[in-house]
């Protein structure tokens, strides 16, 4: 035991975070043209980050731009956000970074990223994706890939349980989950106790919203209805009340224990890889609530930092990665969905039946408001959602809790 060890470490870290910021002088923003050899520091997250450096897309970029060397630093999604913010405070940002779709509010508040060059045509990209790369109506980055969430379910088990068509409405989804469980599966559907990305689309589908005119609307009747519906799956034992660490949803899906779930396009490849034949499972659009069948749009965006000394080269890289050709080749390599509609006309994308569902769902998919405090608001939503799911608060009280906490966060 080290007496005072942690307290000291925490305060030391706190101060370390501000000292470099205090010492750093304003960096000149030299927009030097790309003539001499340039090295770009690129931070990329998750699976894409791991694969980027050795990818075909990168090889063709190097071939086209022998003067530009790219150093990719792969980061895990779990730490990427905090590392990026800390790097801004310490003025040690990379030239280019791949960011989550909810971070733009923070980055622009910190005045850390450059605006889009005028040569970029914003209408080349899906509007939903472009929204995630913008804040207060101004675009600062480009969407690299998009993803949206749809319903995955075991077609064979559903047929056996007497569910012949994919669920069209919320009631249908509940019925399907009940029938699947009654038909011998351990659970009916796999939902998380605390995941705002799964919960918020239900608010939109019920006709509500997260924020309206700068004010949260998390305790609206629509939000309460969404939370009631969501937490019912837990109360009826149709989904796991906790997911053990290291829980493998794919294995549980293949085994038939968790015969349905809501997730993004990356799961399709994993299911096939796990050996489940396509005839036994299917994807379906989100079931419809009172008003719509809205899903969540995610993905990632590229941004260029103001501190970068090679902004031209950086934008060149970003524009290359988001060009039509690269998007198609990137889809073939990694299966990330292109963020621009013109890439979707390629045969590689039109041939895939599952992909059609995602393509259709992308037309009705929202992203949360790009406010700087979103990460904190999201944590508050997660906390209250967990309370409602585990029956520690009524949906109405939990919605009220979310609303109060979220309002407090942006107010103070």
């Amino acid at each position, binding site marked *: 035991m080290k007496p005072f060890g942690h307290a000291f470490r925490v305060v030391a870290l706190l101060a370390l975070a*501000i000292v470099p910021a205090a010492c750093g002088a304003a960096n000149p923003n030299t927009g030097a043209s790309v003539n001499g050899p340039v090295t770009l520091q690129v931070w990329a997250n998750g699976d894409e980050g791991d694969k980027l450096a050795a990818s075909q897309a990168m090889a063709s970029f190097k071939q086209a731009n022998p003067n530009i060397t790219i150093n990719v630093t792969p980061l895990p999604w779990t730490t990427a956000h905090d590392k990026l913010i800390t790097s801004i405070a310490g003025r040690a940002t990379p030239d280019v970074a791949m960011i989550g779709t909810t971070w733009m509010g923070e980055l622009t508040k910190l005045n850390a990223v450059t605006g889009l060059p005028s040569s970029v045509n914003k209408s080349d990209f899906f509007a939903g994706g472009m929204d995630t790369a913008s804040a207060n109506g101004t675009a600062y980055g480009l969407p690299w890939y998009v993803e949206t969430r749809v319903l995955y379910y075991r077609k064979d088990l559903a047929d056996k349980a007497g569910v012949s068509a994919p669920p069209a409405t919320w009631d249908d989804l509940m019925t399907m989950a009940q029938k699947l469980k009654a038909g011998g599966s351990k659970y009916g559907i796999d939902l998380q106790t605390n995941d705002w990305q799964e919960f918020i689309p239900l608010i939109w589908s019920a006709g509500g919203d997260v924020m309206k005119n700068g004010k949260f609307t998390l305790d609206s009747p629509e939000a309460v209805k969404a939370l009631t519906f969501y937490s019912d799956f837990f109360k009826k034992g149709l989904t796991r009340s906790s997911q053990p660490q290291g829980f493998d949803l794919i294995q549980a899906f293949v085994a038939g224990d968790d015969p349905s779930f809501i997730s993004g396009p990356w799961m399709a490849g994993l299911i096939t890889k796990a050996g489940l034949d396509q005839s036994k499972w299917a994807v379906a659009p989100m079931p419809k609530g009172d008003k719509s069948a809205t899903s969540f749009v995610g993905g990632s965006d590229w941004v260029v930092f103001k501190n970068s000394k090679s902004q031209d080269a950086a934008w060149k890289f970003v524009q290359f990665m988001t060009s039509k050709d690269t998007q198609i080749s990137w889809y073939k390599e990694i299966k990330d969905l292109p963020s621009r509609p013109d890439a979707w006309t390629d045969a590689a994308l039109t041939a895939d039946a599952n992909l059609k569902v995602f393509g259709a769902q992308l037309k009705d998919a929202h992203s949360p408001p790009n406010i700087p405090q979103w990460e904190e608001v999201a944590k508050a939503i997660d906390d209250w959602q967990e309370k409602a799911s585990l029956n520690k608060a009524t949906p109405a009280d939990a919605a009220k809790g979310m609303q109060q906490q979220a309002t407090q966060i942006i107010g103070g």
Partner: protein
Amino acid sequence: MSAQQALVASATRARPAGRRGWLREALTGWAFSAPFLVIFLAFLALPILASFVLSFTNFSLGNLVDPLSARFIGLNNYAKLLHDPKFLQAALNTTIFVVFGTILNLAVGLAAAVALNRGITRFRAIFRVGYYLPVVSSIVAIAVIWRFLFNADFGLVNGLLHTVGISGPDWLGNPTLAVGIIVALMVWRNFGNAMIIFLAGLQGIPNDLYEAARIDGANRWQEFRSITLPMLRPTTLFLSVLTTIGFLQVFEEPFVMTQGGPLNKTLPISMYVYQQGFNFFHQGYASAMAYTLFVVIAAITLIQFRLLRSET
């Protein structure tokens, strides 16, 4: 002239006389302590001071790039703490960790020390090293093992329960069980320290006390109650101070096992400080929290030291 005196004399003779000599000696002294001083000032004193100042400001995400734009808001951060349900939850969690953790840590440490001192005669060194090993092991490695042990689906504990026909719970997913497991991990990881110090204390108890008791016909339990425990009193108090201070700052165990969940039931204050400071970048608020924790630790330590002094 003793050897020491001779050394001192020769050193005095070798030293260049006068003002310059004194200056040179002083400079040499400072040069030698400079590495420590620089590190101490830059990484300890300055941050501690800076965060004290921060705790009276609204320093937040927007001030990261230009720290001087933060405003002083007096004691507002401290007042806000009292109305923050998550902080109060974290304070309650920390109290539970400290109370149960400290008591169990001392009890297990004492039991192990007594066993090693008198009970276990064979392989004593192996047991001593074994009990102490968790103290010096990496928490990350420990977490991997512990998470495997208590995994609901393929964990060793539930596997064993399954063989006797019990279907085990999701240990880390259940709020009450998760708290228990964190306390168990804290105790398992730290009792080796208590054991070593208790062992030293035990070996300081004069053997004739036990001999006298045995002549009077006392059994093992009576010996323990009437001799061992009272004689270990100062050791126990000292250890309770150390353990309390350590456990008030518990961070690693819940961080690697549960990340504070489920339902924030295993979220200690220091982890909430981390969340506020480095996930949400409310560094003013986080500093106020860190200082509150510091004051609580200082107060508890002071009380325990008073007790220590009056009891010995």
